[in-house]
């Protein structure tokens, strides 16, 4: 169902007309009430000041990165926190002449709460904080607002300086602490180095290399020794098979051999011939001659021996001589033996060296762990120390910045003023509001009642929802008597309305002139 505006207004107007007594009553009541409330409403004076939070200044770009300028995020909130803090509130009460003697704690508390409720702190634009205070007394409003601003600025600047100082001091103390730590770590490292000379970087690898080399030498030497031993064995075996002296053929020997030959000839001849055969006889003579020569030879040798024995000389037998192969082998054997001895000595020495190196390596390992720990301590401390040093310098600059009021600065953009005109809900607002409300309220009320009432007020409802044809909408017919009553009451209503309006206007005029 779509009730159009025309129909709605018609019904609303009709119904308002029907309840015109009530409507006029409400109008008069609202107007009078508004005027009375307007008259009774206390005059309030508002004094406000604006504080400019200077964020960007010349210093900042220069100091970018070096100093951390204090930024105020959500300045209004911070400003509220600062101003509504007990410190400032107490001071404001004292300075702005609020504090009277004999004020109990609870009364003071209430006073502070009242002050807070009349104070508004809002941010106007990006960097402006507006501090506003309302009071019935303009002078007091001005004074309080002024005091708020002063105290707020001094307090927040003080806070900033303190903050900077505190930050610097803290970092400074940290720097000192880390300096001590670093020195002690250095000292420990030094002591450790002096005790463990080997303990220096790379030693371990060096020692390991050396041990490897020694081990290789040992292996090589052992192999060499084994080889030499085998050589010695084989030489000895060869030597045992070789004669020390070699025998040569002598004259005596040749004679004997000749005899043997002759004898065999003789034996052969004797087989065929008699002993008297000339050849046999000659051979017999020859043998005898040779035997004679042998005997002679023997005598000569004996004589020579006798002579040598008497003269004390070594008799070198003509028939014997030294064996050269034997001599050679003997020499080689001697050489091999010497080699074996040399190698054995070297092996022992190398083993000794290896032992020494292994011991050293063990010592180095033990030292390495503690060295790493000490070094780590040292390095960590050193890094932090350097970082802190940098930070301390930053903090120093920041502190100086704040101390010289070059950081976040607050300055009064618009000082508090002495309000001359009352602010807030003025009398005229009440009058105008009353008039408007007086006109609007009755139809609104009737509309509300209509909404709450389920009974049919629109013929459209019948045709649309109930699907019944509406033949006609008959307006109310006024009888002459009714009309007379209406015109009489309408006159009365008009008189009432104009009287009320006149009254309201008169009071407004007086108020404007300043009588009331």
């Amino acid at each position: 169902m779509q009730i159009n505006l025309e129909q709605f207004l018609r019904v609303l107007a009709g119904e308002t007309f029907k309840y015109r007594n009530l409507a006029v009553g409400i109008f008069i009541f609202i107007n009078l009430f508004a005027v009375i409330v307007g008259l009774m409403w206390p005059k309030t004076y508002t004094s406000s000041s604006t504080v400019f939070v200077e964020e960007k200044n010349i210093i900042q770009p220069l100091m970018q990165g070096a100093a951390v300028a204090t930024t105020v995020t959500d300045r209004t909130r911070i400003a509220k926190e600062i101003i509504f803090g007990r410190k400032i509130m107490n001071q404001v009460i004292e300075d702005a002449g609020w504090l009277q003697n004999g004020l109990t704690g609870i009364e003071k508390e209430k006073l502070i709460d009242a002050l807070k409720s009349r104070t508004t702190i809002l941010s106007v634009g990006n960097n402006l904080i507006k501090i506003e205070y309302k009071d019935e007394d303009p002078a007091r409003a001005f004074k309080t607002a002024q005091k708020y601003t002063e105290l707020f600025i001094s307090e927040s600047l003080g806070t900033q300086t303190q903050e900077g100082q505190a930050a610097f001091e803290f970092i400074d103390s940290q720097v000192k602490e880390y300096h001590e730590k670093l020195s002690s770590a250095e000292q420990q490292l030094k002591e450790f180095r002096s005790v463990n000379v080997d303990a220096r970087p790379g030693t371990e690898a060096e020692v390991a290399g050396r041990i490897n080399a020694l081990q290789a030498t040992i292996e090589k030497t052992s192999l060499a020794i084994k080889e030499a031993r085998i050589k010695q064995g084989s030489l000895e075996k060869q030597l045992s098979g070789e004669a020390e002296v070699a025998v040569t053929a002598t004259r005596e020997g040749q004679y004997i051999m000749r005899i043997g030959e002759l004898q065999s000839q003789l034996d052969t001849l004797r087989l065929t011939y008699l002993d008297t055969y000339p050849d046999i006889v000659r051979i017999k003579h020859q043998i005898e001659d040779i035997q004679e020569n042998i005997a002679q030879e023997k005598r000569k040798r004996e004589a020579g021996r006798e002579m040598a024995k008497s003269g004390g000389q070594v008799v070198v037998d003509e028939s014997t001589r030294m064996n050269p192969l034997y001599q050679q082998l003997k020499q080689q054997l001697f050489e091999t033996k010497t080699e074996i001895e040399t190698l054995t000595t070297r092996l022992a020495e190398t083993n000794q060296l290896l032992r020494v190196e292994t011991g050293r390596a063990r010592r180095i390992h033990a030292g390495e762990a503690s060295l790493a720990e000490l070094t780590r301590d040292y390095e960590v401390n050193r890094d932090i120390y350097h970082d802190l040093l940098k930070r301390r310098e930053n903090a120093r600059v920041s502190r100086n910045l704040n101390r010289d009021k070059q950081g976040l600065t607050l300055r009064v953009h618009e000082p508090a003023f002495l309000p001359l005109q009352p602010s807030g809900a003025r009398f005229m607002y009440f009058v105008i509001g009353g008039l408007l409300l007086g006109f609007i309220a009755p139809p609104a009320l009737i509309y509300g009642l209509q909404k709450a009432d389920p009974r049919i007020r629109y013929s459209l409802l019948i045709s649309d929802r109930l699907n019944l044809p509406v033949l006609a909408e008959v307006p109310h017919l006024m009888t002459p008597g009714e009309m007379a009553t209406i015109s009489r009451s309408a006159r009365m209503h008009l008189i009432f309305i104009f009287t009320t309006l006149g009254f309201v206007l008169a009071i407004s005029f007086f108020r404007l002139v300043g009588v009331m």
Partner: protein
Amino acid sequence: MSKIEEALEKARARESTRSQNSTLEPGMQLRAVPDMDEHDFEAHVAAGKQIARMNEPWQHSRKELAESGVIYPGMEDIRVANAFRELRTKILQTTRGKNCSILVTSTSKSAGCSFVARNLAVAFSFDESKTALLVDCNLANPSHHELIPPDITLGLTDYLRSDDLNIEQIIHPAGIQRLRLIPVGGRLDITAEYFTSLKMKRLLKNIKERYMDRYVIVDAPPIMHSPDARILAEVCDYAILVVPYGKATEAQVLKASRDIGAHKLIGIVFNNEPQMPSISWLRKMMGGLNQVASKKSRSSRPSEGKS
């Protein structure tokens, strides 16, 4: 009344209640009155002549009409008169110009049912070719007798109770041209059953058929509060339901319309819409104010002169 007639009546009553109880089915159409034929047309012409000869022994003054809440041609606030003219036109559209008896009932008391019935009758009588007969059947709250002089007392109830009265004796001129009235009469102790009697039916048939252009308007009590309206609806051709502004809920309207029955109900009249006085009236009132002011000034001046 014979026993056969009684039995017939009962059967009809049962049938009608059944149809009333059933909801308004879309297929249900209003019972149409047969179209006019040539003969009817001639009859209409004859009737027109007859109407012209109707003698009006007396007439209400405009003031009297205004005071009794009756519309009249040339009244200042024509909105009400126009509404009734519109209503009349719509009814005529439904009946296709044929005369009929129309029951006017309402959802509740003080819904302005009698006001609607009376003015509907007056609206019919505005037309010079039509007459209207208003039958006051509202036994609990009869109101239309105020239109006629108080010495005329014979009315519907008297007719139904006695066998001596003629129909002509209870139809009285109402002081408005072409409007006749059957007042409620002096014997208000009759029961609703009289309305279903054959005599009542014959009466309605008679008064309807006596003149071709007579429209019978039956003013009935509210349908929700008494069975009278339902019983009367049976004997009338059509019914209209008066719904007062801001007094009836949707459910009440729906129930009342079902009680009447879809085959009888022509439609709803939304009555008594409150509205601002017309501009002409306001102007008049302001003029009155000025007159008062000028009178005051005039009356003050001579006194000054006297002193």
